[in-house]
């Protein structure tokens, strides 16, 4: 059984600048997701759109420990990872709205968002499929003898699919610099993690492959950050892959039409009471590191940035249908 760690960031030790950075990025993600969902519900954004509201601390805590040249591979619920890895929000909205200025020139949409220049190798519509790809990036790092690392996010549901295991096994057998980050939000669509897994804990699947594994509170950005830091330093030291299991929650349905008959309002409220953003904000004010006004200002700023990005994306031209065959092959 993997070690269960508690969030270690004590209030007194909080660095105001770091904390504000965390808060700001989590708020950006939150607003990005809330607005995406609105645009989706209104029909301005079409296709699919899985939002990660509630899970922001995982994306931010992990990515805050990454370098620009580290790789991240993601899931169908990857807007947060994209933002946390440094993607441009305007280009992200442009992608969601099918514009030429979008990261994927409208060809990918929400499920294939990527910013390869920033090391964000992309979301993926096939659950689990990003995991072996991230392991491949890890192999490439090893062969090129750099000290980058490769990080892959995936859900609890993904831990039941074959690709996950093949990838973990290969990473471990080859001692590759890969961090596996499970976002255990308790559900794979409608099914409960525990009902569908033979393991007591997702991390046990990592420990079976002799990986350093940690189970942490994914609602606490500091807990995520600290565990990531520990695991990454081992990875960069050549100690092989590691597994981080983050307990978190998606506040909304799996996607737009999901009315969540499989869980209770109480459960939702309970998790919302531990919200990663309000918890951190409260800590900051309690420790007198920031005033409520200052925090509101950060939030207002994030909200403004999101609105500006949406506007920018809306103003940008649609994709050109005549170029639909462009990018099938490289020349």
């Amino acid at each position, binding site marked *: 059984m993997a070690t269960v760690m508690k969030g270690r960031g004590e209030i007194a030790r909080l660095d105001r600048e770091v904390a504000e950075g965390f808060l700001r990025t989590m708020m950006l993600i939150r607003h990005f997701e809330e607005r995406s969902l609105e645009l989706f519900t209104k029909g301005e954004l*079409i*296709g*699919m759109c899985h939002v990660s509201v509630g899970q922001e601390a995982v994306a931010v805590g992990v990515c805050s420990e990454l370098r620009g040249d580290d790789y991240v591979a993601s899931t169908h619920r990857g807007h947060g990872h994209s933002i946390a890895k440094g993607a441009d929000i305007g280009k992200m909205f442009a992608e969601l709205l*099918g*514009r030429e200025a979008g990261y*994927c020139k*409208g*060809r*990918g*949409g*929400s*499920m*294939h968002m990527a910013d390869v220049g920033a090391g964000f190798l992309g979301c*993926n*519509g*096939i*659950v*689990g499929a990003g995991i072996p790809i991230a392991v491949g990036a890890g192999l490439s790092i090893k062969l090129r003898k750099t000290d980058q690392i490769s990080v892959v996010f995936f859900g609890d*549901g*993904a831990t*039941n*699919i*074959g*690709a996950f295991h093949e990838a973990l096994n290969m990473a471990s057998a080859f001692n590759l610099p890969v961090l596996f980050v499970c976002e255990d939000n308790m559900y*794979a*669509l*409608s*099914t409960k993690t525990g*009902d*569908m*897994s033979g393991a007591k804990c997702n991390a046990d699947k990592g420990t079976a492959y002799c990986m350093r594994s940690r189970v942490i509170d994914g609602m606490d950005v500091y807990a995520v950050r600290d565990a990531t830091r520990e695991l990454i330093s081992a990875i960069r030291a050549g100690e092989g892959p590691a597994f981080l299991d983050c307990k978190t929650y998606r506040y909304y349905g799996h996607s737009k039409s999901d009315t969540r*008959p*499989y869980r209770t309002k109480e459960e939702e409220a309970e998790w919302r009471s531990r919200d990663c953003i309000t918890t951190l904000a409260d800590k900051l004010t309690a420790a007198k590191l920031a005033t409520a006004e200052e925090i509101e200002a950060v939030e207002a700023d994030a909200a403004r940035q999101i609105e500006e990005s949406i506007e920018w994306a809306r103003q940008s031209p*649609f*994709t050109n*249908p005549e170029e*639909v*065959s462009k990018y*099938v092959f490289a020349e």
Partner: protein
Amino acid sequence: MREITYRQAITEAMDEEMARDERVILMGEDVGLFGGAMACSKGLYEKYGPERVIDTPLAETAIIGGALGCALTGMRPIAEIMFIDFTGICFDQIVNQAAKVRYMLGGQVEVPMVIRTQGGAGRSYAAQHSQSWESLFAHFPGLKIVMPATPYDAKGLLKSAIRENNPVMYIEHKALYNNKGNVPDEEYLVPIGKADIKREGEDVTVVAHSRTALMALEAAERLEVESGIDVEVIDLRTISPMDEETIYESVRKTGRLVCFEEGHRNVGIASEVSARVTENCFDYLDAPIMRVAAKDVPIPCATELEREVIPNPDWLVTAVRKVLGEREKVPAAVGYTSCV
């Protein structure tokens, strides 16, 4: 007669067959309480319980392998794969195991299993959630492939599929679930292996299936009204084994054929229909056979782009006019030049 949706037709078929035969079970991701990602199994969990409507882990290989193991040992499973695009995960279990086991074992077993899944584009779901893979599965002897276009066919074909002692891929179309149509009050079956002439006509034959069968009817109406062109529309319904005689008979009558499908054009069902007709009705053909299919481009997300890749009734109208030699008279439809 009652009017029900395509989705209801599917639910009813499962419901009736589960009531009829307790060996019939449904297994797949979120098919239980949630009622299925496409809401096709709503109510079945409440009615038949968790032992017969089984939520599985997110593990397509285990779903299909599991269903196959059930089928070999006395059950009659329906396995749901949420999107046909995900059969890439369990491709081996479908084409190397389920499709071949009876033959490889020299007839020792029957394989009464249905793989219910859905495909097709039109929803801006992008390249991994919009595909039409029927042409892949049709390549494999040992599999039957069934694709209904209407609620009537959806119900009757699914009931037949569940009673079949061979693996059947039953492929729904994601854009049709809310379509309504008449079905009989009493029980009925639609036989597997029989195409349906959805519209009789004298001038040109259109072979289509699933959503393109409906698009073909739409195009046929327009061609009739606008130009008095009388199109015969054949809905394959069963993709494999193909009811080629119905096609040949029609082509012998009309002398002209357009094959219309939603999958990519390269090595698709339209190619197969074309090749068979050339082989068997060459002397009856008055014009080249044309194919109207998706462009050979991964399906893009943005609406404007997706529309460019996926065929629509306009494309068919243009192609029909072309095989009738009216090329010069009509302006080229959007996307037409590259779609055929």
